[in-house]
């Protein structure tokens, strides 16, 4: 196809396109922010490995998305799964994506960043023990077998979307998908050997806050870009992405005060993420006032699940189920109550006379967790039969960083002897990789 200046391609809006280019970069940055957030939450000897699980998702899901994921999610309007016409970027060009005024190339890239961060989110359930090679294989398979299916259902004209479910920016494909997949992954992989026996603490709460803050920053692109332009839905979602997490942050701090008379920093960072997740599905559909209410009300279940979970035997280490699965679930349902056609131009919720909307939302809130949990559970069970998913116990004591990456997050260099090419042959064998 000959190159044409954008404005000459029919139906392209330069303002929309400009914002979507920026929004795409913002969402890609969220995966790095998530890496910071997660790395701070684990022990120092696993910080690099944890961060690398997020970084590797960019390399893995970025590729699978281009090769097949995008086509499965966004080609055609089949009920359960998309077509194969857009495999390997076939016909993904400067021409506008149907229903938008942006080139499909930008639409593709924007959606790629969603698939990437969703894969990275699941890492939170398996950090500090899963073998890195097994993680990479899992990430590739999950980004083809699970994410595109739910993306197609939720916003690729699949059965949920065409049936009337409202999901602005990924309550289905990103939040519930990652949360319930993480739950399944934690069960299949099993707990860390020291879980429930000794305190396993965040090694750097500053990284946690920095990561949480940068996630919020990126989320303006995530939600603000999910209107695919600069129109009213995007503006509404953008502002709601400020209001709802702010309300969650405030409520979380109050709950912290009530529980222990102290406001915690790790709690605040968690609140920011939970608040952003709560508004993700609802951003472009509910009024700013209701976004504040959602931020306050949604905090309670998420907070108490996060307090309760470590008392269980499920080592869902970084609480992806609570912060993403449950918060996404609540956000999706909330739309069914308080959506307002006067704000979103699409549909009303129960409080505004359309109780059917709640039914559509409940359907998504039921079907998504079932598929995400079931598919991930089976995928990991099959994978576990083909390759070990975790190494022997002493690996966990030494830490994933040296075992799987041959690096440390905080090397001192003291006692490190330079291996030169001349004596390279005599260098001792590295600690066996498992």
């Amino acid at each position, binding site marked *: 196809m000959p190159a044409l200046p954008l404005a000459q391609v029919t139906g392209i809006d330069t303002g929309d396109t400009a914002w979507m280019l920026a929004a795409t970069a913002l969402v890609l940055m969220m995966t790095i922010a998530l890496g910071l957030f997660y790395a701070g939450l684990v022990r120092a000897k696993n910080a690099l490995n944890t961060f690398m699980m997020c970084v590797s998702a960019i390399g893995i899901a970025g590729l699978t998305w281009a090769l097949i994921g995008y086509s499965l999610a966004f080609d055609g309007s089949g009920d359960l799964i998309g077509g194969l016409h857009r495999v390997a970027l076939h016909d993904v060009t400067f021409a506008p994506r149907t229903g938008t005024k942006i080139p499909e190339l930008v639409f593709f890239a924007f959606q790629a960043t969603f698939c990437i961060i969703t894969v990275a989110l699941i890492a939170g359930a398996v950090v500090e023990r899963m073998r890195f090679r097994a993680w990479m294989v899992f990430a590739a398979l999950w980004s083809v077998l699970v994410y595109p299916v739910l993306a197609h259902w939720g916003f690729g004209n699949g059965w949920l979307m065409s049936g009337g479910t409202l999901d602005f920016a990924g309550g289905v494909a990103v939040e519930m998908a990652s949360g319930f997949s993480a739950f399944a992954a934690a069960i299949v992989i099993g707990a860390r050997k020291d879980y429930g026996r000794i305190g396993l603490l965040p090694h750097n709460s500053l990284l946690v806050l920095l990561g949480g803050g940068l996630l919020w920053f990126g989320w303006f692109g995530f939600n603000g870009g999910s209107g695919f332009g600069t129109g009213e839905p995007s503006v509404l979602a953008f502002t709601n992405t400020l209001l709802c997490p702010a309300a969650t942050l405030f409520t979380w701090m109050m709950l912290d005060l009530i529980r222990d008379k102290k406001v915690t920093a790790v709690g605040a960072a968690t609140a920011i993420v939970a608040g952003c997740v709560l508004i993700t599905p609802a951003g472009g559909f509910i009024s700013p006032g209701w976004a504040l209410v959602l931020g306050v009300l949604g905090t309670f279940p998420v907070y108490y699940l996060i307090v309760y979970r470590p008392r269980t035997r499920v080592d869902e280490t970084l609480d992806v189920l609570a912060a993403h699965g449950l918060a996404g679930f609540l956000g999706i349902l909330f739309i069914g109550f308080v959506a307002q056609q006067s704000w979103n131009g699409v549909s009303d919720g129960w409080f505004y006379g359309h109780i059917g909307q709640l039914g559509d939302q409940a359907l998504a809130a039921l079907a998504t967790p079932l598929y995400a949990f079931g598919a991930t559970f089976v995928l990991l069970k099959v994978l576990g039969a083909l390759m070990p998913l975790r190494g022997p116990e002493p690996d966990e004591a030494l830490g994933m960083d*040296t075992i799987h990456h*041959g690096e440390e997050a905080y090397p001192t260099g003291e006692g490190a*002897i330079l291996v030169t090419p001349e004596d390279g042959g005599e260098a001792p064998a590295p600690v066996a990789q498992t």
Partner: protein
Amino acid sequence: MKLVIGIVRPEKANDVLEALYRAEVRGISMSRVQGHGGELDRVETYRGTTVKVDMNDKVRFEIGVSDNFVEPTIQAICDGARTGEVGDGKIFVVPVERAVRIRTGETDEAAVTPVGA
């Protein structure tokens, strides 16, 4: 009166503390040290730079005890720190010339006897 020095794996430090607590040994210092006890070297690569690292993170306990507490202390450290693999650590027992409890000025056996014991 002896000073018991135990150098153990960092991941076993909690188990050692627990064992010492059960043995009713109180008054403990611990510090992070780098040590080498014959375990395999690690090879690390940062871009083009490859190094072998033969110093490993260890935790060093220092416990001043009266003579009849020496054996229980040694036993507790062994119980808590042993994995059976190379690199479990060492215990050294050294004589102590004097000990002073700063708060009260008590000396020697009285200084290393836990308060209320």
